[in-house]
């Protein structure tokens, strides 16, 4: 039975990043395996990926099978070693002499496997060559097998990079769709003095707060009122990021500010989350809640603003405050 790496979970996680298991054959991998077979003068070569309980072959010239149990895998041993792992004669090696592929058909005797490393350094599998007679590799063949191993790793990285690029483009498309959806949900923003859609990233909070502060100061609001509004905006956006967006920076929060002719400021913060029942938020001033670590954001907003409405199931908070009369 092959041994299993102590870092097996991270190795398997790295393997999943390449999304190569159970994919169709590809000429680039087939060619590299074929070259390995020719250069090393073996009837069989494999590009083998070692999964949790099996080894699966991306390329397998010289043998028809596409996967085997990991329990009978030479490659599972090879990935436990750094550098080339060679078994000159499996029948003479106590680790392999009882292996069904050695004791019976297809009667493997010779194995040489070069571990394929992920960019994280984890061994994913091997480029290996197999023969039915005991033998060894020349120095030139070892060097060539190692060079081909680097080429296989390059192909794997190329594949992973393409997947990551596709994912990034898809995430961008989703984010743009989110922005378009959010923008359509607050239709009265043609009168906004500030209308921003920001990524759900806390670092954006001060920027919005500063914008609100600047607008209110320009309108002659007193410091204490400006602070009240600024605090409310910070709390509302923090709630939107934390709860509405689950701290997922690919999501977006919309914030708009209007100053009506009456002097009342209206601020709307909207998130794409599932909403919440504002009436069910416990009162933090109740003795049993006074020292709790959370539950004050909505209370602060309600206290600091003149009127607060949670609409659309809590996904949108509308906050209003009137400018105090000049003293």
């Amino acid at each position, binding site marked *: 039975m092959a041994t299993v790496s102590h870092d097996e979970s991270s190795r398997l996680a790295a393997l999943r990043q390449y999304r190569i298991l159970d994919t169709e054959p590809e000429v680039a991998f087939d060619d590299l395996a074929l070259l390995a077979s020719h250069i090393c003068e073996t009837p069989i070569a494999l590009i083998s990926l070692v999964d949790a309980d099996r080894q699966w072959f991306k390329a397998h010239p010289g043998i028809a099978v596409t996967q085997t149990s990991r329990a009978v895998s030479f490659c599972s041993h090879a990935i436990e070693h750094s550098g080339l792992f060679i078994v000159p004669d499996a029948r003479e090696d106590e680790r392999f002499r009882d292996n069904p592929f050695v004791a019976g058909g297809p009667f493997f005797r010779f194995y040489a496997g070069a571990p394929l490393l992920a960019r994280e350094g984890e061994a994913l599998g091997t480029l290996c060559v197999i023969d039915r007679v005991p033998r060894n590799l020349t120095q030139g063949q070892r060097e060539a097998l190692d060079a081909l191993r680097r080429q296989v790793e390059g192909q794997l990285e190329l594949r992973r990079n393409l997947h990551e690029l596709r994912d990034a483009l898809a995430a961008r498309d989703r984010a743009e769709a989110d922005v378009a959806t959010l923008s359509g949900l607050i239709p009265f923003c043609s009168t906004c003095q500030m209308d921003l859609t920001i990524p759900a990233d*806390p670092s954006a*909070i*001060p920027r919005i707060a500063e914008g609100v502060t600047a607008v209110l100061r320009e309108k002659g609001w007193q410091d204490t009122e400006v*602070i009240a509004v600024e*605090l409310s905006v*910070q*709390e509302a956006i*923090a709630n939107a*990021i*934390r709860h509405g967006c689950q701290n997922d920076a690919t999501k977006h929060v919309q914030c708009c500010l209007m100053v009506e002719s009456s002097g009342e400021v209206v601020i709307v913060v909207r998130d794409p989350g599932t909403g919440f029942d504002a009436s069910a938020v416990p009162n*933090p*001033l109740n003795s049993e809640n*006074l*020292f*709790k*670590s*959370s*539950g*004050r*954001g909505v*209370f*602060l907003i309600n*206290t*600091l603003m003149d009127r607060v409405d949670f609409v659309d199931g809590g996904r949108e908070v509308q906050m209003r405050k009137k400018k105090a009369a000049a003293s």
Partner: protein
Amino acid sequence: MAISIPERSIGDVVILEVPPQVMFYEGAALLRARITELVGTGHLKLLLDLHHVTHLDSFGVGVIASKYVSLRGRGGHLKLLRPSPRSLHVLSIARLTDILESFDDEDEAVRSFQSNARI
């Protein structure tokens, strides 16, 4: 770059000089963790120096409130040093200014822990 909370001791009082970014968004989780460590190692007289903190939000208030009660439960004390008027305003809305002792002078704050000890 990782944020750290500078701290020093006067006698058995540990003074935590809270950087402003620790009280921003969920940064106060760092303060919560450090206070938990201090309490775990028997430090039960903690003074939070808030003079750098310009913006205290509900998350930060929550950490201060929960750690205050946690320390009191172990016979310890958590007090505030030089909170800004704005921070005090937020604490007062949360009705915590009547409970949390707050000082403008460090010596006075440190001495106050000794008074607690004599009671």
